[in-house]
């Protein structure tokens, strides 16, 4: 490139750090356009807001559990003894100019940070964007979500108010419930008996240094991989697995993303200004002898709280060691198992389907009915536990018995996900059928025609080529086959039992999925004219179990 390309300031920088070449290539990088691709941006911007407001707060927050007498301007707590951490949080809220606003923006941004990561995760999940080559980026993203939740919870624990202390007390109970190492672990984390006078200082370091640093590193890796893999796109005319159709980063996405950042900041600031969050002054200083109704964690820990609330109080004793199943199962077994399943989902699905190809075109959720069903089941499971975390407020606000809410949820948490899976999968399959009908017969025009023979039928308008392309831009799915038991030389195939399981899972995965019609089928359907209306769609579309030739036979017999 010639040096004339750059305006003088850019040239000055380019001469010194060679930014031109990188910039020239990457500034023109193309990104596809869709609203659902901006969900991750919300998370990124919330994170930036968190850093900015967090820096402000750290100027005045005193991470110390030394006892002081409060003499600030909040009169209802004046003269009380409390930790410096709590007193300084009150000072930030009442005596530092703009402090309360900053605290509230920080807290709302934390709520939105985790929420937007989760919404982003759901988008990735339902569109299959985690498939090869992006499995590792899924894991990185999951890591950020996990760290974000821990970070939020530690932040919730820092002000040392009654609510945060109660939350930590519950966490400490969970830690202690771990067999054998529980007590040691608790002493290690809290530097002795709970609450001790160490944890605020320790948690502060983790909160402002360790975890933000880790998240920042993961953000970098995440975005680097997005650039390296290139962005996925929804199927559509001109879009293939080998290109990206969209607009360049500079200037289109610079402007869009920059504008969106300000929108996110604006909305968060508005929430911080108008909606009161975590009114620590109402909770009072932490005192292990006190507790309050409505002691709940922030929303992202709500499902854990709910899981503990639902568990009946089982406990057993072996050789003088008490195993608290009431905490072990709901806090130390189920949640880790659930999140591990989520973290490893791309690998699990990849193994089941045996799909080793790269994917840059996204799935429409309906085209993967089983995955979509699994997603709905996960959401239902999570959602029910989440509701259980607020079972007391459900009881009081809907005028029902707390016990009934709890018992209902105890069963619903098992049956709800199954129901959600089944319903969602069937809906997805129905939508696939509807798509195929659209492809083969076109749009329902609403015009009823009567033939001279007295026959009635509805006229269909054919859909555009573009839409037809969009609807057919997906693969026909084939379940994984076990293969013959022995090869030509009579040697038994290795790992046959495992492969049998895999084949069965794969059949389950693709069972009932509606295949897209072949070109032949579409042509045939179109050439038939109005008489198509009488043909059953099922026959033409075929299902996995159905042999395709047989399917066509069925169709043709129906037609004539």
């Amino acid at each position, binding site marked *: 490139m010639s040096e004339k390309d750059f305006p003088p300031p850019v040239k000055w920088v380019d001469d010194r750090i060679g930014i031109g070449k990188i910039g020239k290539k990457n500034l023109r990088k193309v990104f596809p356009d869709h609203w*659902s691709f901006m969900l991750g941006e919300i998370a990124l911007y919330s994170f930036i807001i968190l850093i900015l407001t967090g820096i402000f707060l750290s100027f005045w927050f005193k991470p110390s559990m030394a006892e002081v007498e409060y003499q600030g301007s909040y009169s209802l707590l004046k003269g009380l003894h409390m930790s410096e951490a709590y007193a300084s949080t009150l000072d930030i809220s009442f005596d530092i100019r703009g402090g309360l606003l900053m605290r509230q923006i920080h807290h709302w941004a934390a709520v939105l940070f985790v929420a937007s990561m989760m919404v982003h995760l759901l988008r990735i999940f339902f569109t299959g964007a985690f498939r090869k080559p992006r499995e590792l980026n899924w894991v990185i993203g999951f890591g950020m979500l996990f760290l974000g939740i821990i970070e939020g919870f530690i932040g919730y624990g820092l002000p040392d108010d009654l609510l945060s202390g109660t939350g930590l007390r519950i966490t400490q109970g969970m830690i202690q419930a771990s067999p054998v190492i529980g007590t040691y672990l608790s002493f290690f984390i809290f530097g002795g008996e709970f609450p001790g006078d160490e944890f605020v200082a320790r948690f502060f370091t983790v909160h402002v240094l360790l975890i933000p640093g880790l998240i920042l590193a993961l953000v970098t890796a995440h975005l680097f991989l997005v650039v390296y893999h290139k962005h996925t796109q929804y199927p559509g005319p001109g879009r293939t697995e080998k290109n990206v159709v969209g607009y360049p980063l500079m200037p289109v996405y610079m402007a869009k993303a920059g504008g969106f950042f300000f929108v996110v900041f604006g909305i968060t600031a508005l929430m911080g200004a108008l909606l009161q969050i975590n009114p620590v002054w109402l909770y009072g200083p932490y005192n292990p002898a006190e507790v*309050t*109704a*409505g002691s709940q964690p922030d929303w992202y820990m709500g499902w854990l709280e709910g899981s503990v609330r639902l568990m009946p109080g089982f406990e057993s004793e072996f050789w003088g060691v008490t195993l608290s199943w009431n905490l072990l199962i709901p806090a130390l077994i189920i949640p880790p198992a659930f999140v591990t399943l989520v973290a490893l989902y791309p690998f699990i699905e990849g193994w089941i389907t045996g799909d080793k190809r790269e994917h840059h075109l996204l799935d429409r959720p309906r085209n993967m009915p089983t995955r979509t069903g699994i997603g709905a089941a996960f959401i239902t499971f999570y959602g029910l536990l989440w509701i259980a975390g607020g079972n007391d407020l459900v009881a009081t606000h809907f005028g029902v018995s707390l016990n009934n809410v709890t018992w209902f949820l105890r069963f619903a948490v098992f049956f709800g996900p199954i129901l959600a899976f089944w319903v969602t999968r069937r809906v997805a399959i129905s939508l696939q059928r509807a798509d195929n009908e659209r492809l083969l017969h076109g749009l329902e025009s609403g015009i009823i025609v009567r033939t001279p023979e007295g026959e009635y039928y509805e006229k269909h308008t054919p859909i555009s080529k573009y839409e037809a392309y969009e609807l057919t831009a997906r693969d026909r799915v084939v379940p994984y086959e076990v293969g013959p038991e022995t090869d030509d030389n009579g040697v038994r195939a290795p790992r046959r039992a495992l492969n049998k399981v895999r084949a069965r899972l794969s059949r389950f995965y693709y069972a009932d999925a509606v295949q897209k019609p072949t070109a032949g089928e579409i042509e045939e359907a179109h050439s038939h004219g109005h008489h198509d209306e009488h043909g059953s769609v099922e026959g033409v579309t075929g299902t996995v179990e159905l042999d395709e030739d047989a399917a066509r036979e069925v169709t043709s017999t129906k037609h004539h």
Partner: protein
Amino acid sequence: MSEKRLSLSPARFLSARRRHRSAGLVVLLFGLLAVGSAYAAFAPDNAVADNSAQSQQIEEGKKLFAVGCASCHGLNAEGGGNGEGKMAGPSLIGVGAAAVDFQVGTGRMPAMQPNAQVPRKAPAYTPAEIEALAAYVASLAPGPAVPAEESYDISKVTDEQVTRGGELFRTNCTACHNFAGKGGALPNGRYAPSLMNVDPKHIYEAMLTGPQQMPVFSDQVLQPDDKRDVIAYLKALEEQKDPGGFGLGRLGPVSEGLWGWLVGIGLLVGVAVWIGAKGVKAKGAKAE
């Protein structure tokens, strides 16, 4: 010897016979006489009041009771069954005037139906009628009286006392009534009601009598000053404006999460959809 005895002075007479067999009995009789007369002299003798306004009030209360309360609590407030062997209303003997004033004054009694918990509603009786009912129930057996006005008068309470009330509130009350007195759930459809906009007298009486699920905080447990301070803290909470904006019901993180998702994520996703629809793509489509 008898002459000698007669000549003794009364004091010597008594002292000489202090070891007589019936001496103890005589002393006891004297004692009882003295206490009895003193009681008759000092006690607000019913005998005197019998024909006064109070007995009329009790009569009136008894009539009101027979009409409005007896179907559940029994004609003589001894408690009643519902005909199916279940308790329809507990015995009111010994519950005291404070309990009646609280239950009827907050509209909880008369109850509309025997639910898990009787809710607060507009009172069905006038203050005079409530007083009569309370007088009647109090006449059955002693119990906590309606507190005097100065015991819950919070106009002279100092800031320190309010702060102290807050500590007492957090130690004794928040576990059920929530940190801001907004109430909370209890098992089997019962609940701790909201303490907002409750008459200080009724808060005091509730602590004193422990209505429904609430434990009794007697004057030995929470002394009258403590009770007054708790009331003062509650009133301060009630009057306090939320400095952070809209208080979201002061229910804790659950309502915050709800707002975060519905308003926060809802708005942000809405904006994302809007940008997605109104961006270059739409312009490009027009150009085509």
